[in-house]
């Protein structure tokens, strides 16, 4: 498993080095199009920030999924998340800028209902998450860009420190930008089981590296493509997740939906995971203020999950310089993890009944409206409705205001 990750990682590094180490004569600054962001994605930004530019973005996001007996048949999986976000961005000089993000989540989950039975139940029962990230970006010579970030986040039963770095550069004669990024998260979890039992602390390490390629394809078409390889090691189960071992001879269990016959035990999943995702999107110009986009991702991991997503979008200026709109559709399909089972009758070495690791399809329909105010500020409204094959349908809504000063 580790060898597989190292092979993927080595391949990414070799590809990046081949481009980064290309002869200087092949490196030219792009002209006639926006410069890429310094986030390693290589994708262009709509407007390159100028020295002295500052902005404050305030966003409120809302997520909800109900449970009318779908998904895991033994547990209520309804969930609501409210997330305010504040982002301060300052372009200090032409060559340097930084941003400070602060995220807060209020999470209300159905498992709060179980507090009456298990008062010490975990942070999944009405949780508060707070996270902050400091990131810097540098414009280097010959179109090279670099960035770095440091983040800290915490919850009731969880602490995380994250580091990130990225670099990108234009590729001569190719109308392209290549980028490489790496991010690591070092997490510490307090293991609080579904029944409130405390099981000490465990660590989890996640390292992701992404190689990306932005390419001008024709005068009316450009795209971005990439591959992300992730290696996770440590405690990868969800501490409060339980698996129901069914026993027809057992008395009705009042802690389970429908008083099912059986008993609960902790979810157990492997302590390492290698994940690989290929992704890309192309956007085409139709006419002034109108464009289409096709995006997609193919994912595979060594837990047995493979997934595919396909996402077409349409961008339209409704009122010139005032109102822009975007509509999107997303199809998503995944296979089940090897250790997923809807029913268990005997304990197994690895076992989960997490609906998110089951075979599922989803269809998302949504969009966004952006109002451009006279003073350069923006107000954005987004709404997505996710229809899942397991019935755990979801609503995502966001509202944000970007104030420049």
């Amino acid at each position, binding site marked *: 498993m580790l060898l597989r990750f190292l092979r993927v990682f080595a391949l990414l590094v070799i590809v990046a080095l081949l481009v980064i180490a290309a002869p200087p004569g092949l490196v030219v600054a792009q002209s006639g199009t926006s410069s890429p962001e310094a986030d390693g994605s290589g994708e262009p930004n709509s407007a390159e920030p100028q020295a002295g530019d500052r902005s404050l*973005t305030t966003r409120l*996001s809302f*997520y909800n999924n109900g449970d009318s007996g779908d998904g895991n048949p033994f547990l209520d999986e309804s969930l609501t998340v409210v997330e305010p976000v504040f982002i301060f961005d300052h372009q200090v000089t032409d060559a340097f800028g930084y941003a400070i*993000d602060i995220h807060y989540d209020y999470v209300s989950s159905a498992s709060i209902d179980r507090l009456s039975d298990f008062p010490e139940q975990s942070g999944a029962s009405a949780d508060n*998450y707070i996270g902050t990230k400091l990131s810097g970006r540098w414009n280097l010579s010959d179109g090279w860009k670099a960035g770095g970030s440091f983040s800290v986040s915490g919850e009731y039963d969880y602490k995380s420190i*994250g580091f990130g770095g990225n670099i990108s550069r234009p590729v001569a004669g190719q109308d392209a930008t290549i980028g490489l990024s790496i991010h690591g998260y070092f997490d510490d979890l307090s293991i609080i089981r579904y029944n409130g039992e405390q099981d000490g602390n465990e660590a989890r390490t996640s390292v992701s590296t992404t190689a990306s390629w932005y390419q001008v394809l024709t005068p009316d078409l450009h795209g971005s493509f990439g591959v*992300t390889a992730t290696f996770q090691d440590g405690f990868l189960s969800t501490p409060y997740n339980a698996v129901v071992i069914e026993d027809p001879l057992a008395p009705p269990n009042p802690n389970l939906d429908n008083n099912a016959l059986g008993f609960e035990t902790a979810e157990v999943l492997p302590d390492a995971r290698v994940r690989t995702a290929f992704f890309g999107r192309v956007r085409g110009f139709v006419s002034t203020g109108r464009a289409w986009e096709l995006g997609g991702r193919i994912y595979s*991991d060594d837990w047995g999950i493979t997934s595919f997503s396909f996402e077409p979008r349409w961008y339209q200026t409704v009122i010139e310089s005032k109102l822009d709109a975007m509509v999107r559709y997303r199809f998503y399909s995944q296979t089940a993890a090897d250790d997923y089972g809807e029913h268990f009758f005997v304990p197994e070495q690895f076992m989960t009944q997490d609906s998110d690791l089951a075979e599922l399809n989803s269809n998302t329909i949504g969009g966004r409206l952006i109002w451009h105010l006279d003073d350069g500020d923006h107000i954005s409204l987004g709404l997505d409705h996710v229809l899942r094959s397991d019935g755990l349908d979801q609503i995502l809504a966001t509202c944000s205001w970007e104030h420049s000063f």
Partner: protein
Amino acid sequence: MCRKSQVILIVLLLLSPLAAGCSTVEYYEKQNLQDAAMQFEGDPSEVHFQAKVYYSMEGSAGGIGDSGGGGCGCY
């Protein structure tokens, strides 16, 4: 067609537009690429939320935002 062949085919389809990159587009031909509707958005707060929701409610990760996993109790 076996699943491995399907994945390879889809990867090739995703990468096929890169072939067009072999011919350089001159700077004076890039006016349409500068249209507001052609800009890849990079709103970090929206990407953060989208990534967190998708990653926590689906079995896969990567390709959205800067993380392929970790940094959140939901992974």
